[in-house]
C-alpha cells in the first residue's frame, strides 16, 4: 500500500525524468601528441639563450568535438551519463571523477557554458538550462556553427562592465575550435600553437552533421561539455589544476598559531613524545561561525572557472585562493591575520577583484564567494 502511494507521489513530481530517453552529449575532446621531445620538462635552448622561447607551451595534439547519444533518464547526473559512455560506448573518454556526490571536487567542467560539477548537475537541469542560456554563456563555436569565428568569448577578459565583443588576438586560433574558453591562454603565447596542418586536421574531425545540428541547440536534447575555462586542458576534460593549488598555497593556507609556529621544535617534540594531550585552542561557536562556511571549500575550481579576471591566474590569483586566505583570516585561532591581509593586498591579490560576483553562483558548497571577496576588500582597507 505504502509503496504504491509513494511511487505515485514520486511520478507526479518528476515521473517523466525517470524514463530513459536518448540524450546527446557533445564533448570537447583533446588528445595530446606524444611528448617525446619534452624530456625532463626543461628548455633545450636555455643554455645558449636564456630568453629563448621554445614556442607554445600549450600542448599540441588533436582537438575535436565528439557526440554521443545514449539512453538515460534525465534525472540522472551528467557523471552517470559519462560513466555510461565509458562503459558502453567509448572507454577512451577521459574526465576526472571520484566520490560522485559533490564532496571531492574532482569533476569541475563547463556544462552548456556553465561551470558545474559533473556529479551534481542532473541531465534534466542541463537540458532546461540550455533553453534559457544567454548567448554569452554558450560556447562561441557552437553558437555560430562555424568553428573558426568567435563571437564573444564565454567570459570577458577584463573586469570592466562593458561587454567586450572584440575578438581576442587568438580568436582565429585553430585550437579554439573546441577550446574556445582557453583562448585567454593562447593570447599570452608569443607564438601560435599549431600550424595550418593541425587546423585542417582538427576541423576535419568535426562531424558535418554536428555543425548543422548545433544551431538549434535549444530544441535538441543536447548537453555540451567542455573543460573548465581558466585551466589548461591536458586531455579531454582533464585540466591542469596545479596552477590553482599553487595560488592557494601562495597565501599560506594553514593554521599558524603562535604556540606552534613560534617554537615548532618544542611542540613537535611534545606531540611526538607526549601521549597526554594538552588542550584544544578555545573557540566559541560564534567565532567558529565566522569562518565555518569558508572552511567547507572543496577547491573544485568552479569559482575560478567562472571568474572573468582569473583566466589562468595571470592577473589575479583567483577566488579560490582568496577564499582559502579568508578562511584563516577569519579563524580566531590564527595569529597572523595582519600578515595575511597584507599578503592578499597585492595587484594580483584582492586588488584584482572587480566585484563581478560571477564566482558566487557555481559554488557547490553554497559559499557566497563574491560577498566574501567584498569583505576581504573591506578588511584590507581597514
Amino acid at each position, binding site marked *: 500500500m505504502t509503496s504504491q502511494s509513494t511511487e505515485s507521489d514520486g511520478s507526479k513530481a518528476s515521473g517523466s525524468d525517470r524514463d530513459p530517453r536518448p540524450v546527446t552529449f557533445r564533448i570537447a575532446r583533446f588528445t595530446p601528441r606524444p611528448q617525446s621531445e619534452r624530456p625532463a620538462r626543461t628548455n633545450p635552448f636555455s643554455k645558449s639563450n636564456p630568453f629563448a622561447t621554445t614556442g607554445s607551451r600549450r600542448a599540441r595534439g588533436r582537438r575535436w568535438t565528439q557526440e554521443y547519444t545514449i539512453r538515460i533518464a534525465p534525472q540522472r547526473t551528467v557523471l552517470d551519463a559519462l560513466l555510461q559512455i565509458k562503459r558502453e560506448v567509448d572507454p*577512451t573518454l577521459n574526465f576526472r571523477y571520484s566520490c560522485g*556526490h559533490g564532496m571531492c571536487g574532482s569533476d569541475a567542467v563547463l556544462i552548456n557554458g556553465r561551470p558545474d560539477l559533473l556529479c551534481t548537475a542532473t541531465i534534466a537541469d542541463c537540458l532546461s538550462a540550455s533553453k534559457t542560456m544567454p548567448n554569452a554563456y554558450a560556447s562561441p563555436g557552437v553558437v555560430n556553427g562555424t568553428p573558426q569565428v568567435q563571437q564573444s568569448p564565454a567570459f570577458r577578459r577584463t573586469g570592466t562592465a562593458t561587454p567586450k565583443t572584440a575578438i581576442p588576438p587568438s580568436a582565429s586560433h585553430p585550437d579554439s575550435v573546441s577550446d574556445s574558453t582557453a583562448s585567454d591562454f593562447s593570447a599570452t603565447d608569443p607564438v601560435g600553437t599549431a600550424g595550418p596542418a593541425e587546423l585542417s586536421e582538427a576541423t576535419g574531425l568535426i562531424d558535418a552533421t554536428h555543425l548543422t545540428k548545433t544551431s538549434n541547440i535549444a530544441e535538441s536534447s543536447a548537453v555540451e561539455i567542455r573543460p573548465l575555462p581558466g585551466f589548461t586542458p591536458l586531455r579531454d576534460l582533464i585540466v591542469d589544476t596545479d596552477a590553482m593549488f599553487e595560488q592557494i598555497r601562495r597565501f599560506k593556507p594553514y593554521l599558524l598559531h603562535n604556540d606552534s609556529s613560534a617554537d615548532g621544535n618544542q611542540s613537535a617534540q611534545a606531540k611526538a613524545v607526549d601521549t597526554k594531550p594538552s588542550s584544544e585552542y578555545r573557540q566559541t561557536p560564534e567565532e567558529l561561525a565566522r569562518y565555518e562556511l569558508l572552511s567547507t571549500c572543496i577547491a573544485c575550481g568552479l569559482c575560478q572557472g567562472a571568474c572573468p579576471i582569473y583566466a589562468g591566474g595571470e592577473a589575479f590569483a583567483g577566488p579560490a585562493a582568496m577564499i582559502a586566505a579568508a578562511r584563516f583570516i577569519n579563524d580566531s585561532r590564527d595569529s597572523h591575520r595582519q600578515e595575511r591581509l597584507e599578503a592578499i593586498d597585492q*595587484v594580483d591579490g584582492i586588488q584584482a577583484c572587480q566585484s563581478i560576483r560571477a564566482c558566487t553562483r557555481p559554488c557547490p558548497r553554497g559559499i557566497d564567494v563574491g560577498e566574501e571577496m567584498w569583505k576581504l576588500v573591506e578588511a584590507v582597507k581597514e
Partner: protein
Amino acid sequence: MNALILQQLTLTFRTAKGESRRQRTIAEDHAMTGNHPGFGVVMKRITYEPGVARMTSQGGDLTVGGYLAARDPPDDLIHLLGEGKFGHKTHSARVSRHGPEGPPLSTGCDSINGMNPQKVRNRYDAVIVGAGAAGLSTALGLYRALESNRSESSLSPKVLVVSKLQPLRSHTGSAEGGIAASLGNQEKDDWHWHYYDTIKGSDWLADQDAVRILAEQAPGIVIELEHDGVAFSRTEDGHIAQRKFGGHTADYGGHPVRRAAYAADRIGHQILHALWQQCLHLGVEFAEEWYVTDLVVDPPADEESGGQARGLIVLDTHAGKLQAIQADNIVLCTGGAGRLFHTTSNSWDLTGDGMALALQAGLQLEDVEFIQFHPTGLGHTGILLSEASRAEGGVLRNSQGRAFMQDYAPGHGDLAARDVVSRSIMAEIDAGRGVADPSDPDGPHDCVWLDMTGIDGQRMTALLPQVTETIHRYAQLDPTVDMVPVKPTAHYTMGGIPITDRGRVYRWQDGRRRVVDGLFAAGECSCVSVHGANRLGGNSLLDACLFGTRTGQTIAAAMPKADEPNDMTDTSPLAPALQRRQAFMDVLLAGASKAEPTEPALADNQGEEPDTGDDASLNNPYALMGRLGRLMEEAVAVRCDQSSIERGLRGLDHLDADARQLHAHSDTAVLNQEVTAIMEVDNLLTLARAVLNASLRRQESRGALYRSDYPQRDDEHYLAHTMIDANENVSWQPVHIVDMPPKGRNY
C-alpha cells in the same frame, strides 16, 4: 631598487645544516616562464630589493633548478622570497647576487617546491603511497618527529607522497559523522569505556593491545587535529563538541555517551584539508596523480626475517611513463576496496590497490572477509544516508509497509547495530518483500523504504541537511512526503595488510610475526586489527590518523640510526619489475592501434543505441568492474553461504579470463584513464579472490560476516585472524586477548 639582469641572480639551495646542495645561476639553469610548470618562455628582468626579488616576465612560471619557484607571476612581481618566520624548517634557500653585494636573503621552501616535483628522483628515504588521512598523517608524523630530533641528525631525508588523486580528492573527505575520542567535553567519559566498546563492536576479533592504544591516545590525536586547524563544532564554552554514536557507551555497555568529536556533518573534509594544509606548511613533496603499479619485496633471507621492501614501480599518469623508485621505507595508505561491490558508499577510486599490491608481492592479508555494509545507502547510487536519519525518527519499511526492524531486533528496532540492520534488510529482500528503486521501476526489488515522513520538515532541514540534500539531488524525492529507497551499501574493509601497532607490515609464518623490513601500512588498507569483525562508528578516522602518525614516527626514529644513506641509486632489484610492467603497458597500448575504433570513428555511434553487446563490454574495464561488483554482491554482500561463495569463485574465473583480454582503445599513454582502469580491475580481481576464499574458510558468523550455513560465532575454532595470501593459503593468527575475555555481543 636595483635592476638586475637575469644572469646575475643565483639561487643556492641549502639543507638545514647549511650544506650546499645545489647552486645555480638562473641563466645557466633555465629560469623559465610559461603557462605550465617547466615550460620555458621569457624572463625579462629581475629586480632586487631587501626582502623581495622581483622579476618581470610575460606571465607564466619561474622554475629554478628543476623546481617550480613561482607560478604565473603577475606582470612584475614574484614573491620569490618568503619571510623567515613562514619559512620551511627543514630546507631553506638563499638568494645572492653576483653583481654588487647585497644581503643574502632566506626564503621559505614553500615557494620553491611545486605541487608536483618537476623531476622525481629514483631514490627516496621514504615513499608514502596515498594521501588521505592515513598518508598525510604519516607524512606529518614523520616530518614532525624528524624536526624534534633535528639536533641529533644531520640528515635531510627525502620523502615523497605518491597518490593517484590530488590529496584533497581523497575519500577521507566524505566521512561525515565524527572521530571518536573520550575527551569528555560534554559529559564524563573514560578511554577504558571506549576500549571496551570497540572490542565489543569488533565481536572480540580485535587485538586488544592495539585497541588499547587506539582508545588511550585518541584524545591526543583529536587535539592535535584541532591544532592543525580542523574546524570542529564547539560547545558554548569553546571546547570541541561531541555527539552520540551507535555503540558508544558509558560504564562498559551502559547508557549512550557523547564521544564522537564532530565538525557539523563533514568531519572527514575538515580533517583531510587540515592535514593537507599542514603538509604544505612543512613542505612535504607530492607526486599527484601517480599510480603505483608494483611493489617489490625481496623474499625472506633467513628464518627470522619477513623480507625486505625494495621499491615501487609507479606510473606518472600525466606523462604516461613508468618509473622505478627505490625507497628505504614504503608506506601503503591506499584506503579501502568498496569498489569490489556494485553498491558502495566508496568513491570510484577505492579499488583496493594497496591490498592487491601486497598480495602480488607475496604478502598476506588479514581478515579481508569482513566488509562492513552500511544499512542505508540511497537506492542505486549507494550514497550514504547517515545513521542520523534513523536516529531522528526514520523508519525502515518493507513492500507491505511494515516496520520490520521490530521483528528482528525487538527493543532496538531501527537503531540496532549496522550489521544487524543490514542483515534484516537483506532478509526482507530475500523473502520477496523488497521494493524497486523508483528510478528503475522495472529493476530488481532489492531495496526497502526509509520512511522519514514522520519527521517534522523543519527539524529535518535543521538536523539532517546533508541527508535531505542528498535525497533531493540524487533521488529527486522529498523525504517529508516520499518514501526513500535504501539498500545496504559496501562501506568499509575491516581487514587489510597486517601491521604491528607501529605500522610495520609482517608475514604470519610459523606461528609468529616476521616483519618485512622497510614496509609499512596505515589506514583502511591496513589491519592492525582495532576493528576486528565490525568497525564502530568514529573509529576509522581515528585509526587512520593515529596509526598513520605512529608509523611516521617509527620511520623517523629509525632514520638517524640507519647507515649512511647510499646516494648511489641502485635500482637493479627493481629492473625486472619495471621491465615486466613496461611490457604489460606496451601490450595494452599496442592493442589500441591494432584495435578497431580510433576515437573519431567511435563517433559513428551517435544516434544509435549504444552497443552493449559482448564485444563492447568484454573489452571494457569499466564494464568488467560492473560485472565484478554484481558478482561480489551476489556472492558475499551482507550474507553468504558456501554455495554462493563457490558460485562467486567460478564467476571470478570467467572475469579473470576476460580481464586478460583487456587492452586500451587509445594508444596515447598520457592521462590514459583506461590503462589505469585495467590495472585497477586486475587489483580488484586479485583482492576479490582473497575475500571469497577467506569467507569460505571461516565457517562461522561473526560481526559483519554472516554465513547462513554457520549462523553462530565459534570462538573455539575461529577466535583468530584469517591470514590469506595470493595462493589462497590460509593460516590463523590468534587474537590478542589482553583484558577482556570474549562474551556475547548484544545490542
